[in-house]
C-alpha cells in the first residue's frame, strides 16, 4: 500500500498519562513516530499533540479512530501535507570565526530567511524555520563551514480548512451537557 507522511493532530484533556496512551497505539502497529510535539492548545485546558508518521491511509485512519476512542481524547484527525500549513524550527551552532572569515554564511542566512540568535567570541547560533527538507538543505550548506551542533523541533501544523472542527465539537458537547444537567 502507498506510503505517505501523515500529520496526526490530537486534542485531549490535560490529564496525566495521555502521552503514553497515544504512543502505545502507534507502537502496537510498529508505526515509527517521526516527530511529536505536545503543548497547550489555543483553547484553555485542551492539549494538542502533533504527530507525524509514514504509513498507508487505511492504517492511519484506524490509528486515528483508536486515538479518539481513548476516553480523555477529545478529537483526532489526520492530514496529508497539502491540507495543512506546517513548520519546524532548527538551531545551528557554528564557529564565529567561520562567520567572520567569509560572506557566504551571511548570504545563506539571508537566502534561507534565517537569523542570528546569539553571537559570542567562539560560537554563533542561527535559527531557521521551515520544512524538513529546507532545514536539511540549510544544514548541508552551513556544514561546509562546520556545524558544531544542530537541533530541530518536531512539526507543528495548522489546517487550511476554514471550519474549526474542534470548536464545533466542543460547542456540541456543551449543548449535550446542558441537556444532561
Amino acid at each position, binding site marked *: 500500500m502507498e506510503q505517505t507522511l501523515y500529520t496526526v493532530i490530537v486534542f485531549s484533556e490535560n490529564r496525566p*498519562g495521555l502521552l503514553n496512551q497515544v504512543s502505545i497505539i502507534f507502537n*502496537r502497529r510498529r508505526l515509527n513516530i517521526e516527530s511529536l510535539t505536545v503543548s497547550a492548545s489555543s483553547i484553555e485546558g485542551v492539549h494538542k499533540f502533533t504527530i507525524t508518521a509514514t504509513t498507508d491511509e487505511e492504517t492511519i485512519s*484506524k490509528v486515528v*479512530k483508536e486515538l*479518539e*476512542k481513548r*476516553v480523555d*481524547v*477529545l478529537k483526532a484527525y489526520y492530514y496529508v501535507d497539502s491540507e495543512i500549513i506546517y513548520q519546524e524550527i532548527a538551531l545551528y551552532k557554528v564557529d564565529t570565526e567561520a562567520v567572520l572569515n567569509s560572506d557566504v554564511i551571511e548570504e545563506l542566512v539571508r537566502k534561507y530567511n534565517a537569523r542570528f540568535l546569539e553571537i559570542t567570541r567562539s560560537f554563533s547560533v542561527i535559527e531557521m524555520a521551515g520544512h524538513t527538507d529546507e532545514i536539511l538543505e540549510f544544514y548541508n550548506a552551513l556544514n561546509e563551514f562546520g556545524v558544531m551542533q544542530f537541533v530541530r523541533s518536531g512539526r507543528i501544523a495548522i489546517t487550511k480548512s476554514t471550519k474549526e472542527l474542534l470548536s464545533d465539537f466542543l460547542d456540541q458537547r456543551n449543548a449535550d451537557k446542558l441537556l444532561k*444537567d
Partner: protein
Amino acid sequence: MRSFIAEGVDTIFGYPGGAIMPVYDALYDFRDHLRHILVRHEQGAAHAAEGYARVTGKTGVVLVTSGPAATNIITGVTDAMLDSTPMVVVTGQVVASLLATDAFQETDIVSITQPITKWSYQIRSASEIAWAIARAFYIAREGRPGPVVLDLTKNAQTELVDFHYKPCHFIRSYVPIPKPDMSNIEEAAKIINQSVRPFAIVGQGVILGHAENEVLAMLEKAQIPVASTLLGLSAVPSKHPLYKGMPGMHGKYSCNVKMNECDVLIGIGMRFDDRITSTLNSFAKQAKVIHFDIDQAEMHKNVKADVPVLGNVKETIPLVTALLSPNRHDEWIKSFDSYDDTEYDEVIKEELNPTSKDIKMGEVVHRISEKTNHDAIFVTDVGQNQMMGARYSQFTKSRSFVTSGGLGTMGFGLPAAVGAKIGKPDRTVCLFVGDGGFQMTIQELGTIMQENIGVKIVLLNNNFLGMVRQWQEMFFDERYSFTTLHNPDFVKIAAAYGIKGKRIKEHHELDAAIEEMFQDDAPYLLEVQIEPKGMVFPMVPAGAPISDVRLK
C-alpha cells in the same frame, strides 16, 4: 465504600493485602451492605467479576492490593477489554511519597493497564476518590463497556475528607453513544428491502444494548435468517425458526457457506472477528455489508462496510425496521437445510449418539441442555469444551452463555461460573471445562466451598489439551508435543473441598449422573471421562476461506 454503595454495588470480588488494608478495614463496617467474595487468587476475582457482569448486566467490582495482586488481575482485565465486559478494579498502591522508589509491592499498574482498559487512573488523595469512582463506573458501563482500573494509594485510603458523591453523567471528551445518521439508516433499509438473500449475524452488542426484541422484530418483519457469534449466543432463542446457529472456525456448515453466498450481510453489534471471517480477502466478497455497531473504531476495521450504521442497536435497529417492507425469503431460508442435513449426518448424529464405546463431549452438552430445558446459564472454559458447549447447548433466555471469546483465556471458566451463580442465584449455572483449563484456576474450588456456591461443574476429561492436540493431529503430523496430561483424582480433590462429585465413563451412566447433579442446588463436580482423541468438527482451517469447511 459509600461511593460503591452510591453506584449500586452489592457484591465485590477481592483479596486483601498490605496496600489495600485501610479499605478492607472500612469494608468490615459495611458487611451488611456489601457482599465480599474472598477468592483464592486475584485472577479468579477478575474472572468472577466478569461472569457476574455478563449474566446481570451490572458492573463487576474487584478489590485487590498492590504489586503482585495488581499484576495478577491483568489477564481478567484484558479478557474484559476484549469481550466488552463492564468492570471496575480497585488496586491498592503504596503511599504516594514512596511512588517510583521500587517500594515493597509497588508496581506501575496504571502504565501496565493503559492498553487493556477503557480508563486507568491513579488516585493520590482522598479528595479524588468520589470523583474517580463515579467516573470509573460511568466509563465502564456506558457505550461499549469495558474495564477500568483505579489505583488507590495507601495515603488516599487513610486521609479524611468530607464525602460528597456526585454520580457522573457526562464526560466532555467521551461520546459513549454516537447519534444515528439518518442517511445511513435509510440506505441500510433500502438495501435490505432490495435484498434477495439477506443474512444477519448478531453479536454481544445486541445483549449489551438490551436490543434482543428490537433485533428479532426486524428479522421477523423482513424474514432474515440469522446467525450468532460466540459472544452473541442466547441473544436469539435457539429454537427460533430464523435462527441458523453460530458461524466461524467451528461453526455451522450452512452459516459459513451462506456468508459467502448471501447478497446482503448484516452485522449487528459484532466485530467480524477473525474466527468468524477466516481470511478477509475471501470473506463475503459478493455481499453488500451493513454494519451496526456502537464503536466507531470497529467500522471498516476488519470488513469494509458498504453501510456503517453507528449507534446503539437498541436505537438504530427500530429506525431501520420502520423503513422495511414486510418480506419473505422462503427459498433462501430453505437453502440452509441441505447443509444442515449434511452436517447432521456427518458430524452431529455420531456426536450425539455415539456408536463407539467412549462418551463424546457433544453428547454430554446436549443431554445437559435438554435436562435443564435449555434454560440454564452455561459457562465454558476455552478449547474443545468451549466449542462443544457453544455448538450443542441451546438457549431460551438472553445472557445465558458466558465464555472467554476474544482473549480465549484458559482458566476463565471456573471463576466465571462462580461469578455467574452469585449474579443469578436462582438459575442453574453449569460449567463445561476441560482438564487443562480446570487446573489453571482450580484453587477457586476453595471459594465455592467457603461461600457454598451452587455451581455445577462438568469436567470433560480427555487427559489431553484437546484443542491443541486436534491441531497437532491435523496440521502438525501427529506430533503430540506436550499435550498429554497426567491428571490427579479430580473427584477426590473436589471431595477435599467438601464438593460432591462423581466420575463416569459409560454412556449408560450419563443420564443418572446428570439427574443426580441437578437434584439440589449444591455445588457438584461431574467428571466425564470422554473419548481421548475427540475432535471438534466442522472445522475451517486457519488461513482458508470461511466456506472451505471440513466435516472430518
